[in-house]
């Protein structure tokens, strides 16, 4: 397969399709490692995971074992989890608090700022040995946007803020919902999918599958009764059908009215419990006061499925979920899921927030197991041969709705540019739809 022909696009004819080998080729998977995972900004974690000096977390990013630690000086740093001497892991538990990290192999000891502070029998080393140069090594780029930390293994990567493109505004739309700030709720869902990692990226953006695939979830929530009636939208955006939007650089969002469905911030439904009604309504009133009706409506009465290219899905739906996934070979991925809650949320609402999250999401939810089944089934189907293409042309010739695939095409254009060795796609949206949603339609 000629790499240039992996995507077949005819804008005027309304054709956009991707060759199935994008999901099955080991050669392409290897190119992705080099051109995507070693070049992009990749999600690492949230600031609240290291509240105190000495707190640390182990993470694997793009197959690289790392750990992330807040030094005694208060600064969060990321290190390769490898002793600068013989290479063994110096951090050997998933999380904790430490002043020193001593390698168990030869007892070289590093402080929580990464400096090498002790070497047994140091006198045995000659004048070519420079202890101060043997501190733990860091990935070339680490930065954060409002507490969301990313790393890049590409020294020349553009700044994180510019990389995030228009996704920044949608991150703001989530993070602004809690004036007291957010924290990661302890407890991590770690699972896997026997499918190519891009299945997860694209499933995370796709609303078209939601009704047919997840009917059992809707049957369950509808059986619980109905929530508060949704307010009349004070803004044209995103409209009753919602929108699928490109956020530049391969990022995308699906945004649509949440109607009468539960949103801990801030729309009450029986699944959130009678006792939480007041807390939720008060939160909404505060947001209206602070941000105005339009922005408060977007925060409280629309859902967002956002993908930060390539592998970080930030969903603001039945709760805020952070899902990041790592390819392991071409047909298997490891998935990690965490959730955010506002600092100081009442114990009752936190409990309901988590229950609401678990009803839909996660490996034991009423919906997500079927996403995984669909991804694995499609992977088997792609491997089976027969048709050569995946059609992703939905909505190419109309103003996008949430059921359309404008964001999916934006992902593929960025991906294709990367595969061909370019940093960016020359065009990130369909020419027939340049609408950029929030900034164009709702800016004050």
């Amino acid at each position, binding site marked *: 397969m000629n790499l240039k022909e992996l995507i077949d696009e005819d804008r005027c004819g309304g054709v956009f399709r991707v060759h199935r080998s994008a999901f099955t080729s080991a050669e392409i998977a290897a190119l992705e490692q080099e051109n995507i995972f070693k070049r992009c900004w990749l999600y690492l974690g949230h600031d609240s995971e290291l509240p105190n000096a000495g707190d640390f977390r182990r993470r694997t990013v793009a197959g690289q074992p790392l750990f992330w630690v807040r030094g005694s000086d208060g600064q969060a740093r990321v290190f390769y989890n490898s002793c600068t001497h013989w290479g063994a892991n110096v951090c050997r538990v*998933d999380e904790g608090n430490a002043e020193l990290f001593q390698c168990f192999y030869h007892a070289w000891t590093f402080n929580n700022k990464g400096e090498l502070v002790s070497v047994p029998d140091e006198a045995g080393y000659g004048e070519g040995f420079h202890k101060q140069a043997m501190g733990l090594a860091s990935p070339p780029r680490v930065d954060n946007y409002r507490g969301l930390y990313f790393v890049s293994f590409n020294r020349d990567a553009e700044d994180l803020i510019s990389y995030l493109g228009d996704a920044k505004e949608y991150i703001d739309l989530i993070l602004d919902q809690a004036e007291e700030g957010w924290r990661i*709720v*302890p*407890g*991590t*869902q*770690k*699972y*896997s*999918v*026997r499918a190519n990692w891009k299945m997860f990226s694209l499933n995370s953006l796709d609303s078209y599958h939601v009704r047919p*695939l997840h*009917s*059992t979830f809707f*049957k*369950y929530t509808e*059986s*619980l009764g109905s929530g508060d009636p949704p307010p009349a939208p004070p803004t044209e955006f995103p409209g009753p059908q919602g929108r699928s939007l490109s956020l530049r650089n391969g990022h995308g969002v699906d945004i649509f009215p949440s109607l009468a469905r539960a949103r801990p911030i801030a729309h009450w439904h029986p699944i959130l419990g009678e006792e939480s009604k007041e807390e939720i309504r008060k939160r909404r009133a505060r947001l209206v006061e602070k941000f105005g009706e339009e922005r408060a409506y977007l925060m409280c009465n629309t859902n967002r499925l956002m993908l930060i290219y390539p592998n970080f899905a930030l969903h603001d739906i039945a709760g805020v979920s952070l899902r990041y996934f790592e390819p392991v070979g071409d047909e*298997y991925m*490891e998935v990690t*899921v*965490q*959730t955010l809650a506002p600092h100081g949320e009442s*114990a009752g609402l*936190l*409990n309901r927030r*988590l*229950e609401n*999250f*678990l*009803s839909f999401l*996660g*490996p*034991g939810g*009423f919906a*997500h*197991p*079927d996403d*995984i*089944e*669909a991804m*694995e089934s499609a992977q088997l189907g792609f491997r089976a041969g027969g048709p050569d293409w995946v059609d992703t042309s939905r909505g190419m010739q109309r103003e996008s709705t949430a059921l359309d695939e404008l964001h999916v095409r934006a992902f593929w254009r960025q991906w294709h540019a990367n595969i061909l060795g370019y940093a960016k796609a020359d065009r990130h949206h369909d020419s027939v739809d340049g609408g950029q949603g929030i900034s164009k339609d709702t800016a004050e």
Partner: protein
Amino acid sequence: MTVGRDDSLNEKLTALLLEREVEDFLVREAALLDEWRLDDWLDLFTEDARYMVPATDMPTADPKETLAIINDDMARLRGRVERLKSRHAHREFPWSRTRRFVTNVRIKDINGEEIHANASFLVYRIRSGHVDPLIGSYVYTLRRVAGLLKIAARKAVLDLEALRPHGTLSIIL
């Protein structure tokens, strides 16, 4: 023969009978699940019961304040069973085969009508060419209602570090 020795024997026999009763209860429960007799399985629960599977990195945490994998009250557990019985729980349609080994049953505490018991489990899920073992321990609160044992709380604590390569927890664990 002293009276004391008889008392001690009676105590031992009572404890042994309870152990057997609990063990038998858990083994029968496992059979109901392996046979996908989910409605019969639901009948084993009290109305205030919970079914929980904590996250693999927080095995002892309270799911009220931590993200778990499953935290069902009876309404959600009935919804889960309803879902699994439909043709639209795609991860389990057709149903996977399962085989459960429930062993090392220990009575931890008896508190009035409530019995706290732990057990080890090894549950195989077999489907679509994969055999995925789930390993861990059960923490039960059983309650005697009208002479019969019922489940008032059932927590399945996974020893696995992650649901990998399983992907999901789509069966009842």
